[in-house]
């Protein structure tokens, strides 16, 4: 009970602080919109490549942009941890009888909420520019679920990294050298069977691709529910491992104080 209450208080704190930075909020919202419109326009003709199974690139691209936004939101979340460490806010929470679980959950929960809002905005925008999602509301919900799992996973890894290394540079490097390549080693922008074989091989083990495949499949009516379930389960397992690692990092931080 205490853990839940504390998670709620810390979530409110995160969201309130986030909303207090209007420019940051605007950028967070604008980024996926730019991806969607820019890539959508740039690669519009890509669907004409023989073998591409959809006719609307926006429809194809949307789940990719959603997943990518969720992944990056997670990846950057360690920056907030470093800020709290530097400012002594983390230690203040730890000296108080704050639920230890809530210290971590209070960062993950607002992230899931942000992912949810971001996803809805992207979907609505995509519908405006011609995307069609035959999977309906159920499909969108599944897309949100897999995006949230991915956001939780990379958020945990980012927080763990922040707790262990305590340097903003480490988080920046991880985002640029891990998350960015992961985006391109997936089917976010291009149908997998049109990509080089080695990218297809790597993508099979890429959690970002699991989320994109699951989300895109769910958005299409009559698609294989087995694919969705399988990939969602992979993501769930990945999220469990990541949160476990973050918990370990948190204990290591407490020991090192």
């Amino acid at each position, binding site marked *: 009970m205490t853990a839940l209450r504390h998670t709620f208080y810390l979530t409110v*704190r995160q969201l309130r602080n986030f909303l207090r*930075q209007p420019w940051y909020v605007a950028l967070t919202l604008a980024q996926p919109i730019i991806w969607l419109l820019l890539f959508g326009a740039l690669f519009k003709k890509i669907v004409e490549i023989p073998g591409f199974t959809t006719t609307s690139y926006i429809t194809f691209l949307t789940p990719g942009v959603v997943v990518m936004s969720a992944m990056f939101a997670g990846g950057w979340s360690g920056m907030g941890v470093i800020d709290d460490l530097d400012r002594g806010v983390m230690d203040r929470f730890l000296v108080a009888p704050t639920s230890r679980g809530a210290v971590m959950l209070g960062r993950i929960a607002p992230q899931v909420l942000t992912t949810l809002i971001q996803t809805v905005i992207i979907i609505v925008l995509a519908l405006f520019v011609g995307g069609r999602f035959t999977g309906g509301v159920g499909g969108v919900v599944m897309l949100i679920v897999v995006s949230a799992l991915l956001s939780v996973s990379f958020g945990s890894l980012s927080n763990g990294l922040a707790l262990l290394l305590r340097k903003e540079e480490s988080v920046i490097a991880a985002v640029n050298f891990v998350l960015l390549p992961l985006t391109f080693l997936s089917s976010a922008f291009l149908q997998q069977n049109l990509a080089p074989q080695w990218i297809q091989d790597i993508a099979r083990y890429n959690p970002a691709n699991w989320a994109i495949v699951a989300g895109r499949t769910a958005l299409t009516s009559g698609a294989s529910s087995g694919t969705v379930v399988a990939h969602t389960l992979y993501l769930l397992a990945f999220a469990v491992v990541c949160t476990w690692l973050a918990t370990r990092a948190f204990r290591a931080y407490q020991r090192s104080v």
Partner: protein
Amino acid sequence: MTDAAIDVKGLVKTYPKGVRALDGVSFDVAAGSVFGLLGPNGAGKSTTVKILTTLSRPDQGEAVVAGIDVLRRPDRVRRAIGCVAQNSGVDVQATGRENMLLQGRLYGMGGRVLEQRVDTLLERFGLAEAARRVTRTYSGGMQRKLDVALGLVHRPEVLFLDEPTTGLDPEARADMWSEIERLTGEEGLTILLTTHYLEEADRLARRLAIVDQGKIVAQGSPDELKSELHGDAVHIELDAPEANGRVAAALAPLSEVHDVVVEHGRLLHARTDNGARAVPVMLQALEAQGLPVVSVTVARPSLDDVYLMHTGRRFEQADAATEVTR
């Protein structure tokens, strides 16, 4: 030991890479009093506070705070203590009031009781007007006051103040001092204060311990510590490098001069029962050894002298030296 609010025995803490932060620290603090831990940067003050506030664990030793074993029941200790860390803990994106409310909620407070407590404290620390402003806009002194207010929301029995005035301008420091003095008079609060300002310890602490390189080198009330020094301090600046040997030769025959320390080979510190009588004799003896004197100061004992006697270094220099290596 029953009425000790803090009882510490033989704390040892070694950080990775073999840095021994604490090397057997023991002291106890009577309930309702202010206890000062005085020492230069890196002496082990903050490490002691981190252990007593459950943030860190010692390699060896025991600690009891507010009657609770810190190592066995950290969860219960956390409810009984308030802590103002050296590094301010204010969330700069939240308002003063939001900071306070969240802090109270983490301690299980809520509703009208919490709101009233928060308003009272903000009022008392002169932050009522700024309460609804984001704390990023606060001055250093205001943020520090908010830190102290945060530590008091849940009415702790024991309050830890880790260098509460470091980095404050003289006015804000004087302000903070009167706040701390007021606190001790109320609610039977026990305060453990760490500082590297001698005058701060002298003014606020009923008892204090001087910490140096992870060890407590002296303990007592400021007056006790000063009276151990017997009489006046004489500081003489010589115009001769590496004069240690000749100083010893000059002053050894003078029975009324004791505790002679020579720093950098040319700053001479000594103690004597009567400075006015001893100085002419000392000057004569130094001249006789061919040691020209640049300046002479006679002073009543200060905590600086206590520090010098126990560590062989002057306080500011120890502080400056560690400042550079940090």
